[in-house]
């Protein structure tokens, strides 16, 4: 038995109020830690709110920002994933998710896919991350961090799993839309996300941990529905839609081992073949013609 307790902080951040959100994070983190949580996961841009527009530069933090470091100091003997606007030393702004552990900023993932269509306008305000990399963690297995739209692109979960991640953590600010009666849970967005996450859990034989915010920014209402899915694709926990709350889920990391031995699809993945084919496709797409 390798049990770990994961706390999903399904919060409603206040738009643009960094100090207030920092305080909420600190409080939830301390409470969850004393309740025995090994990992506390906060939603995308939980420290700033989502629809920032020109506020993006005003709420940005460098990785050596004292406010971020002081939040990290609350993670003695536990881990947390928090998300904020990161300002790089060269002043590019990124949507970042950071793994805080044992008092330090252990790893930072910059959102690699920035939706700029429909109701989204992220590329206008942010730079796109270039790196997808698993990170070791005090949970005992590597984690893979991703932010919202990163999970609407197949390469992200597979790269993280190939890099060793056994728990994929997606933090989101997903706006709920499409209330057509035909949808499974009355919300098209939730239906799509559940299909994606179940698929990734099965194909990577990993745990998928999804923390989505609630509350309202401008026109959009975020739907929550945070979730933990086992490496067999079965939902282990599902938070209610739209309710703010901190939900604790216990997982057994031994499930990953069991599943990967029974169903060794990750072992049978063929990255070299994929690379060769990708190189060919890229060559041809660039006008190189068929070899």
């Amino acid at each position, binding site marked *: 038995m390798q049990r770990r307790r994961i706390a999903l902080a399904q919060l409603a951040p206040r738009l*643009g109020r960094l100090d207030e959100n920092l305080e909420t994070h600190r409080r939830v983190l301390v409470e969850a830690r004393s309740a025995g949580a090994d990992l506390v996961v906060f939603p995308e841009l939980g420290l700033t709110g989502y629809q920032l*527009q020109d506020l993006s530069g005003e709420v940005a933090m460098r990785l050596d920002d004292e406010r971020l470091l002081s939040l990290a100091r609350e993670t003695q003997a536990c881990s947390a994933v928090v998300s904020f606007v990161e300002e790089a030393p060269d002043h590019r702004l990124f949507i970042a998710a950071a793994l805080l552990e044992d008092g330090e900023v252990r790893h930072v993932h910059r959102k690699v896919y920035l939706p700029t269509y429909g109701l989204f306008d992220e590329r206008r305000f942010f730079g796109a991350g270039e790196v997808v990399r698993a990170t070791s963690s005090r949970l005992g297995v590597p984690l893979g961090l991703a932010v919202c739209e990163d999970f609407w692109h197949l390469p992200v979960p597979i790269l993280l799993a190939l890099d060793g991640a056994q728990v994929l953590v997606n933090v989101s600010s997903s706006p709920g839309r499409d209330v*057509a*009666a035909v949808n499974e849970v009355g*919300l098209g967005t939730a239906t799509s996300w559940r299909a994606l996450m179940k698929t990734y859990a099965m194909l990577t034989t990993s745990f998928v941990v999804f923390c989505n915010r609630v509350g309202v920014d401008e026109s959009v209402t975020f739907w929550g529905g945070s979730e933990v899915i086992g490496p067999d694709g079965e939902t282990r926990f599902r938070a209610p839609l739209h309710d703010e709350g901190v939900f604790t889920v216990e997982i057994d990391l031994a499930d990953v081992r069991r599943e990967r031995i029974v169903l060794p699809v990750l072992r049978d993945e063929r990255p070299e073949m994929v690379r060769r084919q990708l190189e060919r496709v890229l060559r041809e797409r660039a006008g190189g013609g068929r070899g």
Partner: protein
Amino acid sequence: MTEPEGAGRAPAARPADADPLFELPPELAIDTRVARRIMVEFIRGQLRQAGFERAVLGLSGGIDSAVVAYLVGEAIGPERLLCVLMPYRTSSPESLADAREVVDRLGCGSRTVDITGMVDGYFGRMDGERFEPAALGTEGRDASGLRRGNLMARMRMAVLYDQSAEWHGLVVGTGNKTEVLIGYSTHFGDDACAFDPVGDLYKSQLRQVAVDLGVPERIIAKPPSADLWPGQTDEAEVGFSYPELDRLLYWMVDRRRSPEELAERGFDPRFVDHVGRMVARSEFKRQVPPIAKLGPRTSGVDYLYPRRRPAPTS
């Protein structure tokens, strides 16, 4: 007309085999439980972001403002809602009675402000056979129904914003998606508001929500009317029924179908053309007026902030 399973639940008091209160095109069926939750969260979120705890709206006796009143009541409690009833001398007494029933059922605050003096003080009025001119002079005698209707809507807006200052509440809009898309509203009149929780619901969908909320059946079933003159109904004025209009708008706007594809779906090309023009012609009503770009940073162009934002800290 059949309603798909799981669509807008009817209130328990209503037998399942009763005649439906309204016609619902199947593709417009929504999960009213989820829609209601989103709208309630939206109302709370908007007020919270703006730092207000109270709300005010114009209650006409029609379904749209009744639904919004119920939603606001659910979001913040009816005691924080002020409904303003604003009849004109030609308004139908039934409208006022229906509005009063909503107020009674909800237990919200209410206030009646008769706008007759305001409107007649501009256009003038007939005293028997004799015209008594007012601010507009003799021209007021021949003012069209459109001008009168628009002024009534704008007087109501002025009253609402005055009441909003006194009540310390934000003005909640009541325009539905159908009227927003075809522009069936008075600009800076009934479309003026701080936020609109029902502007993405077609009339047919709003009716489903109304049933779910327990809005009085008479309000749901009666023909929608702007009540700007006696006997007026929306459907007679616009020329189409709401179910057919809603269906067309859904396929045209939400599902992005071309006129050819709409014709294949059985919509009369003349109907498609006519409604397409109404939508295109009213684009300006759905947008903030443009500002001439002169400086380095211009509102709405390259000065983009959330509508409510915290003051910068030094």
